[in-house]
C-alpha cells in the first residue's frame, strides 16, 4: 500500500495508521500526539492534536474527506494523500487544540516536576505567537492521595486516558478511572491509597503532562539539572532497562527509556523504579540520548553546542560567571539545525 503524506510517498503494511506512516517519514510531517500511545491498545483519537487533512481518500474512492481526521485512528488506504505539516487548515486546528488544552491547565510549569519533559510544553512551544485569550476562571479540582508512589494533580490533567488504558492492559485491576463529565471530568482513584499494583509506576511515564508524577522524586531537582544514564539490572519482573536520573552520585529517579516520540520502550516494574536508588544496584551503559527537540537536551553531554550559536542571556538577570550562564540558558535554535551545522 502506498500513502503520500506532505508529498512524501511511503510503502506501508495494511492496517497501518496514518500517524504511524507519518512517523516513518519523520520530520515536520509527524503530527504531535497527546493521547495516542503506540504501546497501548485503543489509545488515541481523543486529544485531536494529530488532526490531518485527507485530500484523497484512496485509489478506489478518491474523494477528499470533508472533516479533518485524527491520524492516530485513521487507517491508511492505498493511494491515500494526506496533508499534515503542509496544510494551514491542519496547523490552525492543532493550534486551536493546543489552546483548548491550555485554557484549564494551571500553567504552573515553574513548580511542576514534569517541566522540561512535558509533552504539553513541547506542544505549546511548537505553536509560536501565542497569547492567552482566556479571561475566565479556570476549572480547578483538589488533588487526591492515590498511593505512596504516585502524586496526582488533577488540575494539570488533560484527560488523555493513557493511564486508564495502561491500568486496564498492564495491571490486573484497574482501580482508577474518569469521574464526572465535560471540563469537570477528572482522573480519580476514589479510594485513598488504592493504587498499589506492581506496574503502577508506568502511569507516571505515560502521563504526557505533570498530572501523575513520581512522589519519591518530588521537588528534588529540575530534570534538566540531572544527568541521564542508561542502565540495566537483572530484574525478575521486567526487562530492567531504565534511565537513571542522577545528580552527582545520587540516583534521584528511575524511569523507563523513552524513544524519540517520548513513548517508553519497555514498561518497568515498581521495584526497579522506586526501590533501587543506588548506583551500585545498576549496570551503567552510558549516557542517555534524547531524540526529541526537548529542553532536556540542554545538559546532554552527547550534544556539543555549535560554535556559531550565540547564547543570549540577559547579563543582569543571571549574575555570575559567563561559563555558568551558558550552561543553564536554553538554546533557541532547533536541534535539527544544530545537527545540520555540525
Amino acid at each position, binding site marked *: 500500500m502506498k500513502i503520500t503524506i506532505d508529498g512524501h510517498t511511503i510503502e506501508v503494511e495494511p492496517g497501518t495508521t496514518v500517524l504511524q506512516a507519518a512517523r516513518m517519514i519523520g520530520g515536520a510531517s509527524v503530527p504531535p500526539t*497527546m493521547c495516542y500511545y503506540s504501546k497501548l491498545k485503543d489509545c*488515541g*483519537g*481523543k*486529544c*485531536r*492534536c494529530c*488532526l490531518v487533512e485527507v485530500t484523497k481518500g484512496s485509489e478506489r474512492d478518491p474523494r477528499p474527506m*470533508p*472533516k*479533518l481526521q*485524527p491520524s492516530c*485512528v485513521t487507517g491508511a488506504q492505498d493511494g491515500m494523500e494526506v496533508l499534515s505539516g503542509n496544510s494551514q487548515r491542519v496547523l*490552525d*486546528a492543532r493550534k*486551536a*487544540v493546543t*489552546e*483548548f*488544552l491550555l*485554557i*484549564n491547565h494551571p500553567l504552573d510549569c515553574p513548580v511542576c516536576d514534569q517541566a522540561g519533559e512535558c509533552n504539553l510544553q513541547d506542544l505549546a512551544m511548537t505553536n509560536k505567537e501565542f497569547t492567552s*485569550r*482566556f479571561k*475566565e*476562571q479556570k*476549572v480547578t479540582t483538589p488533588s487526591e492521595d492515590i498511593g505512596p508512589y504516585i502524586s496526582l494533580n488533577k488540575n494539570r490533567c*488533560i*484527560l488523555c*486516558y493513557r493511564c486508564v488504558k495502561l491500568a486496564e492492559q498492564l495491571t490486573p485491576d484497574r482501580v482508577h*478511572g*474518569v469521574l*464526572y*463529565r*465535560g*471540563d*469537570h*471530568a477528572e482522573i480519580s482513584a476514589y479510594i485513598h491509597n488504592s493504587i498499589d499494583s506492581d506496574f503502577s509506576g508506568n502511569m507516571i511515564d505515560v502521563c504526557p503532562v505533570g498530572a501523575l508524577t513520581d512522589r519519591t522524586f518530588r521537588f528534588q531537582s529540575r530534570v534538566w539539572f540531572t544527568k541521564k544514564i542508561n542502565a540495566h539490572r537483572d530484574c525478575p519482573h521486567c526487562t530492567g532497562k531504565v534511565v537513571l536520573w542522577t545528580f552527582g552520585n545520587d540516583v534521584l529517579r528511575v524511569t523507563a527509556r523513552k524513544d524519540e516520540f517520548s513513548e517508553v520502550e519497555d514498561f518497568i516494574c515498581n521495584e526497579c523504579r522506586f526501590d533501587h536508588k543506588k548506583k551500585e544496584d545498576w549496570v551503567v551503559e552510558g549516557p542517555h540520548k534524547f531524540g526529541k527537540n526537548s529542553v532536556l537536551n540542554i545538559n546532554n553531554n552527547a550534544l556539543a553546542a555549535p560554535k556559531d550559536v550565540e547564547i543570549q542571556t540577559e547579563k543582569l538577570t543571571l549574575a555570575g560567571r559567563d561559563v555558568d550562564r551558558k550552561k543553564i540558558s536554553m538554546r533557541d535554535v532547533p536541534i535539527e539545525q544544530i545537527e545540520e551545522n555540525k
Partner: protein
Amino acid sequence: MGKKILTEKINIPGIREYDVYRQNGGYQSVEKALKEMTPEQLVESVKASGLRGRGGAGFPVGLKWSFIDKKSGKPRHLLVNADESEPGTFKDRYLMEFIPHLLIEGAIVSSFALEANLSYIYIRGEYMFVFKILEKAIKEAYANGWLGKNILGTGYDLDLYVHCGAGAYICGEETAQIESLEGKRGNPRIKPPFPAVSGLWNEPTVVNNVESIASIPWITLNSGEEYAKIGIGRSTGTKLISASGHIKNPGVYEIEMGMTVDEFMNSDEYLGGMIDDRPLKALIPGGSSVQILPPQYIFKTANGEDRLMSYESWADGGPVTGSSLGSGGFIVYNDTACIVRNTWNLSRFYHHESCGQCSPCREGTGWMEKILYRIEHGQGTEEDVDLLWDIQSHIEGNTICPLGDAAAWPVAAAIRHFREEFEYHIRFPEKIKDRNHFREQPMEKVRQLLAK
C-alpha cells in the same frame, strides 16, 4: 387534515392497554412480517419507503439496515434509541407514553428484518414513568406470545428489554449509547468501525430512533411504495413535530412532509400563529442543536421559494441561511426573547452534557458558556463576539461525535443572524440588567442606539 400514521389511534381510550391495541388492529404487521415476508423483503420495503432516521441526522433507515453485517454470523441487535434529550424535542415521549405497543410492534418487525434475537430499548433516566409504561407493555406482549421463544409458531425468537439510562444527553449518540448499555462510561466510540459492523458487545447493531421504528408497522402493512407516496422528494412519510415557545397551540403534531412552514405555523389546525400580537423574532426548527433562524429565512428560503417542512427545504441555504429539520423540536420565539440569553442557556446545556473525552468539545463548550455568561450579565467586551466565533469554528468538525457540532452551530447561527443583539448587550450593560428588558424595549426600538 393530513395523513396520520403514528398518531392515528393515539386518541382511542385505553390504547395503552394490550387488549384495546390488539382490537384496533395492533400487531397485524408482526403477523404479516413473520408469516408472509422474509427479512430481505422487509429491508427492501423499508428501503423503498425512503424512511429517513427521525433522530436528527436523517440517514435513510433502509440503507442503515442493509449495512448490518449478516455474513459474520455473529448475533445481531436492534437498539431503539429512546434517549430523547434534545432541548425542544419531546415527540418520542408522546408516542411511548400513549401508544407504547406501537413501538414494541415496530421493534419486533425491525428485529425480524435484521434477524436479531436480542433487542433493547434504551430510554433516558428522566423518563422513568415512560419506562414503567414500556415495561408493562412488554410484559403484556410476552404474555400474549409476541415476544419470547417461537413467536407465532414461526420459530423466530426475540427478547426485548428496556434499559434505563442515568440521564445523559451524550447517551443519545449511538456509540455512547452502546457503551452505556454495556455498563461502561457513556463515551462515544471512535468510528470506524461503525455499529453496523461492531456495536453492542462488538456484535453488529442497528441503532434507530423511536419514531423511525414506530413507522415500521405501517410500512410493513401498506408497503414501502405507499409510504413513499406521502411526503415530498426524498423526505417521505410523516414527521412528528414537537412545537413549543410563543405559539398558540404548543404540542406534538404529526404532519405530512412537504407542508409549508407558513401553514404549519399559522393554521388553526396546527400551531395557530403567535401567542399574542408580538411579532415573530426567531425560530429553531429542529431541536436546540440546529441553527436558529431570523424571520426573513423562516417562511421563505434565501432564493425566495416557500420553506417546506422537509429535510431538503430546511437545509436549503446551508448553515448560512438555512437550518435543519433535525429531530423536529420546533421552538418559536417572539420579540421578547433574548437571543443572547437563549444562546447562553443552550451553551450551558452543552457544557453540562459534554462527555469530556475529546479536548475541543470538553474545553470549548465550557469556554463558550463562560463568555456567553459574561455577555449576558453585562460584562462582555467587543472582542468577545469574534472570540466566540473563533472558538465555535474550531470545535465544529474536530470532535469525535456530533455533540461538538451541536454545541457550535447554535452559537454560530446566533452570531451570524443576531450579532447586533450581542453588541447591544456589550455596549449597553445598564439596559440589559432586567431579564425582561426586551419586553419594554424590543430590538426594533433600540437598534438606533447601535448605529451611533
